[in-house]
């Protein structure tokens, strides 16, 4: 079982480069496995598994091609640092980048029709992209926390989109029209999209709430030497790290470009946690996992 967990985790992470940050979250989830009983010999194996998961995350991150790195570096600038502020000219100038590049706001790396200056040109690379590395972006957002918070709120509005509207749900050869979507859970998805508060702070509160609720079970189970609550706590904790950190990574990594796509795992994590929470409530196992020990 544990073996299967690690294999599927690594498969999930290495499936797409943007899944790299998930390695950390699943590393957290896997800590729970260490608390399984009669498990001393395999504890080492679990530790090894965690390390493997982390390495696969780093590996997939490193495998991102230079072309895509260029696109990401550019778009995190044009679709990130330049957004949600009235006039970024002076702001980016404080960061040592020519303020004129503020005019690139909302421009895509692969321009759809016409470009004033091709973002893949040498000039842009030399005078803009060589300067706005990862460290620059972090420093910029650290100096403009309010703007960063606004951007996270933009991301939070997409957090409920289990069903990104821009892309179809079918594979190319399935005979469906391009862009056609399945109809399951459409009502749920749109309801959630309409009523879920689009604030990043709310997502964080929710995460803290979930963790707090499940940490009670965690505490009780540690005392009672049961493992179910512990396992569950780390699962929730891992999913909540997805909810909290993936928006940050997306904004820092690629701005609001393809945001819904990058955030896709956030609504998945949220909904899974919610499902677990509801089932725990209905089975009265939220703080009392006693019944579970029998079944295992």
């Amino acid at each position, binding site marked *: 079982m544990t073996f299967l967990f690690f294999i599927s985790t690594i498969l999930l992470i290495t499936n797409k480069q943007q899944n790299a940050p998930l390695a950390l979250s699943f590393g957290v989830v896997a800590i729970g496995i260490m608390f399984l009983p009669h498990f001393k010999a395999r504890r080492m194996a679990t530790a090894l598994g965690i390390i493997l998961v982390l390495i696969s995350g780093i590996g997939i991150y490193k495998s991102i091609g230079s072309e895509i790195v260029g696109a990401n570096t550019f778009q995190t600038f044009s679709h990130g640092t330049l957004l949600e502020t009235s*006039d*970024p*000219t*002076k702001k980016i100038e404080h960061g040592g980048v*020519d*303020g*004129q*590049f*503020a*005019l*690139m*706001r*909302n421009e895509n790396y*692969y*321009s*759809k*029709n*016409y*470009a*004033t*200056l*091709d973002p893949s040109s040498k*000039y*842009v690379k030399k*005078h*803009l992209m060589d300067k706005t590395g990862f460290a620059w972006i972090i420093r910029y957002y650290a100096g403009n926390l309010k703007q960063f918070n606004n951007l996270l709120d933009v991301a939070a509005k997409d957090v409920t989109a289990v069903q990104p509207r821009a892309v179809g749900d079918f594979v190319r050869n399935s005979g469906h029209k391009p862009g056609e979507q399945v109809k399951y859970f459409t009502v749920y998805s749109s309801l959630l999209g309409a009523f879920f508060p689009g604030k990043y702070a709310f997502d964080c509160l929710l995460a803290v709430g979930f963790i707090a609720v499940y940490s009670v079970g965690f505490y009780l189970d540690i005392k009672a030497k049961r493992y179910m609550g512990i396992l569950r706590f780390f699962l929730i904790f891992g999913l909540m790290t997805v909810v909290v950190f993936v928006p940050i990574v997306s904004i820092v990594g690629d701005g609001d470009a393809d945001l819904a796509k990058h955030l896709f795992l956030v609504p998945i994590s949220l909904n899974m946690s919610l499902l677990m929470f509801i089932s725990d409530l209905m089975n009265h196992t939220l703080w009392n996992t006693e019944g579970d020990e029998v079944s295992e």
Partner: protein
Amino acid sequence: MNKRIKFSLVMSLMLILFSLVNFTHTVGATSNNNRVLLVYDSQNDVKNDKKNIDALQRSLTSMGLQVKTIPQADYKKNTLNEKYLGVITMINWRQVGLINQDFINDRDKFSGIKLYIGENLTQTETNQLGIKVQKVYQQQFILKNDTNHELLPFSQSITVITQQAEGAEQVGTLSTQQSDQKSYPFGYINGKQGYLPFFTNKGLSLIVQTQMIAQLFNRVGKFRPLLTITNVTPYTNLQTLDELSKFCYRMEIPFAISTTSVSENTEMKAFDRFTAVLRNIENRGGIIFLQTPEVSSGVDTDGQLLNQKFLTYIVSLARQQVFPVGISSAGFWNQDKILRNNSLKYADHWLLMQDGTKVTYIDQDNNSQVAKQSFFAMPATSLNNVKKNNSTTFVIPTALTISMPYSQKELEHVENEIKNLHLSWYNPVEEGFSSEINTETTSLKYNHGDYLVNGKLEDIRNTNLNLNKQFSDGKSNSLFKNYFKVQGNILAVFFVIIMVILLIFIFIGQRVYWNRFKR
């Protein structure tokens, strides 16, 4: 009194009539058979020799000739007829050569101007040209023209004229490097027939070639070169651009810049700053060509997006008192129906530059049009080995381009480059440069240094020369900022007080609750 009015009425009527006649006359002159058919054998993508075709097309456009370009494979019988003023055959890839028999027949019958460029002349061609030719292999020639000479690149084979017809003209001379120094004519004109052994896109060869073609088509003019700074964008180092324009102003060099613009974010400070520098350029005697953007994809099939972009460019620039006098683009924009009609067509002055590495057509029709005047752009460095002096002129309107420098060091380099060119530059004010850009909403006119917007003379406001000072952050909204800050603090304090009261209530409530059980 009455007589006087009548007289003035008659006079003005006559004037109107005269101007009408004059107008139709000029229109007639441009539309009257200035069409040229260019048939080439191959683009020769391997050696990237389509640049030669591009250079030829642009130079013909600058001569005011409309060029219809056809690869020989697509040539249909009777395409070449009396509607054309002339025909140009271009052998771009010796190994391919001319094989379309329909074209060869039509051309033999054609009675207009004929120009043959390259090797593999047919017998009829040589007869009509009245020459004897010889193929020379593995040679390096020197091209001489007046006092200039240029060492040509080593050529595998070249067809030279060994015997000329009587009364034929010769433009430039080719001579071998050996001790016995044979020399042959380079450009050769015999009445309506012309021959060039090759066409390249740079250096002295290019100048001699254009001179020869202009002579053949009887389009020889006398133009001083226009100094043009290219690759200017809104992302350019504006400090450098401003200093460069200041340098030209101090040196009394009239100049032009070719700049792109943006259609979005024009409310930003960065755009104000960009236009402020462009205004400075206008005030320092520089003229501005609006450069077309880069075509990233061919999705804009009806040109709507491009059209919209251009309208926005012009309106947003004009609002900041930046008035382009013409439109500049890479040569291929004139070979594309959609691109041309939605950009170049707005202006009556063009500046056509060499095609870059990226050429994306939307609806290529190879049917280039002409403007009132179009400048043929070539890099100033391509004339490095050509002798120049104050009286150097070109036969077609020519723009010598210098790429926009970035750093201070590059700027100094460019300044030296300009100083060392020792040319007498084209001066738009002195030479009565008068241009128009007309869009659906805006009409911009330039006339002898005056700018007119929708018919009204504009006085371009001077901008503070110290860019940094001018654009420092104003503190105009600090009053409200403070207000909101204070308000925020008051709210925070308010909530803290409420929290404390609530906590006290909870504490009290808890005690009350517990006390009930204690009793």
